């Protein structure tokens, strides 16, 4: 080894002629140039992303705010009367339906997802875990329109048979479909949060004679609480913004959902059903944009909540 280095060193000066050093200097400046250029390119890319966010807010917000020239905000937010043909733009029913659909989805999805996450992170042997995780990824890959189609052709007939209702579409059908869609999101992030709990916590609890269930319920889950809550909120943003799967099973009737099986409509489904039929310069279109803007604001608020929680954790 040492001899080799020495022989290399003795050969090196012969290779470095004067001309070669000049070329290297040129190459060096070229490298410096490409170095600073690529720095600007990467900065430009991230700024482009922010620009897109700005575009979204400006384009949707600008059109949305035109609504309030003619319709009072109180009418829009509080009235349940959505008959755009007669200039009644009350979106209250859609807002409440969206919130109740999201809540119902989470009630179904959270216990199952967190249970799966605990199974993956704490209980299952390694081979089973490395089987479950990719399978959950498969679930993410299935397009939302296919979920909707399955809901329509498989879930609705099933619900009709079980409940004896005439149609079967409504909040419950939509919530079941959405629960399946947010399951992998919540499960994978909670899984990561549980895995990140330091091993010594578990060891300490086991040393006190806890059973595995007690360790999970009293030590691991409380320690992973913030991560799990972020997972649930991310699942919420998905559920609130999902369109095509919901539109196929919810019934698309602009009314307040009074029972689990009454056909109704949420913000997203109402937008996609009506947007292609309206004039651009009409209050109807402005109202639909206002609903989209509302969706935007809700998602931003949820993201800010997650950030806020993340900062608290770092402070603690």
């Amino acid at each position, binding site marked *: 080894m040492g001899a080799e280095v020495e022989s290399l060193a003795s050969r090196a000066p012969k290779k470095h002629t004067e001309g070669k050093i000049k070329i290297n200097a040129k190459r060096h400046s070229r490298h*410096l140039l*490409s*170095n600073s*250029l*690529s*720095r600007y390119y*990467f900065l*430009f*890319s*991230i700024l*482009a*992303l922010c620009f*897109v*966010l700005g*575009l*979204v807010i400006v384009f*949707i917000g600008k*059109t949305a705010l035109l609504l309030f020239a003619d319709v009072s905000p109180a009418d829009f937010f509080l009235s349940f009367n959505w008959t755009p043909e007669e200039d009644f733009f009350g979106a209250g029913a859609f807002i409440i339906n969206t919130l109740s659909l999201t809540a119902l989805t989470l009630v179904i999805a959270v216990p199952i997802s967190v*249970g*799966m996450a*605990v*199974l993956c992170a704490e*209980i*299952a042997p390694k081979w089973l875990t490395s089987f*479950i995780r990719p*399978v*959950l*990824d*498969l*679930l993410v*890959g*299935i*397009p939302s*329109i*296919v979920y*909707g*189609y*399955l809901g329509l052709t*498989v879930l609705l007939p099933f619900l009709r048979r079980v409940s004896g209702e005439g149609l079967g579409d409504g909040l419950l059908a939509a919530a079941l479909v959405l629960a*399946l869609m947010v399951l992998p999101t919540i499960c994978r992030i909670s899984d990561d949060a549980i895995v990140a709990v330091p091993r010594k916590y578990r060891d300490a609890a086991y040393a006190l004679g806890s*059973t595995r*269930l*007690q360790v999970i319920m009293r030590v691991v889950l409380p320690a992973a609480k913030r991560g799990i809550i972020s997972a649930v909120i991310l699942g919420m943003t998905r559920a609130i*913004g999902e*369109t*095509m799967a919901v539109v*196929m099973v919810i019934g698309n009737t602009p009314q307040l959902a009074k029972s689990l099986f009454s056909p109704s409509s949420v913000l997203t489904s109402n937008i*996609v059903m009506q*947007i*292609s039929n309206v004039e*651009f310069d009409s209050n109807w279109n402005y109202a639909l*944009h206002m609903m*989209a803007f509302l*969706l*935007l604001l809700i*998602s*931003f608020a*949820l993201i800010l909540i*997650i*950030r806020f929680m993340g900062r608290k954790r770092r402070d603690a």
Partner: protein
Amino acid sequence: MNGFTRTRHSARAQRRNRLATFGFYALGTLVLLLIFWLLFTILSKGLPSLRPEFLIKQPEEIDPGGGIGPVLFNSFYILLISLVISIPIGIGAGIYMAEYAPDNKFTAALRICVESLSSVPSIVFGLLGLAIFAEYFGIGLTILGGGVSLALLNLPMLARVTEEAVRAVPGDIREAGYALGMTKSYVIRKVVLPVALPAIVTGVCLVAGRAFGESAVIILTAGLSTSGEMWDFNLFSPGETLAVHLWYVQSEAIVEDARQIADKSAAVLVFVVLMINFMFRFPLWLGNRRKGR
């Protein structure tokens, strides 16, 4: 002598523990069965009766026996356009966040931007595309509009997967590069990116699979119809994709075999998405296994 005596309390705790373990396994089994049953239902309804003609024939409005040729082509075409636009910017943004971003307020603001953008519902991107292309530029519902809007939807996800992939590259190989006198961009190009490539490819495949099945954006920006030609590369013709076609057939079509067409379209859609996910990841997975040995 066993120093530990079973009290009634601890016996109950152990019984509960066994019961809960059983419960967790039962839950896992049920969920896995549900997932496989879903995939089986989709694929078994459509694939057995699938003929190659179906994939290249024109859709029919009135007679039974229509195919999905142009919509399948449009799906790939729009996906390609969206990836060509979004990959350079998305990966660039991810590299900035992982390699360059200093730890200050500006970076925190950028991060909030990226996260907010990734939480924007897809229907809102549809409205944005509609406002930009149909209203502002006045070119109506086109393949170009669909591709660009889809690219915007992809951007934050690409940035995130790239950032994660680049962050996972160990710091010491970077330092080895610097020690040789390499510039930062040279280290990124020659050292960091090759190491991060498998993870980035996996992420791009996930994004591509999502984009292939995306429908809310395409309905609003590329429309519910095709130009009626098979290999139509014109960026300004309407571009219904397969996912949108599934929606159209299910909700508005009047052909008598709409149900069969929808079943087959759904099967093709899921099949292609699974293929996109596996085709690129499988070689990487194999490579990893070989390296592991």
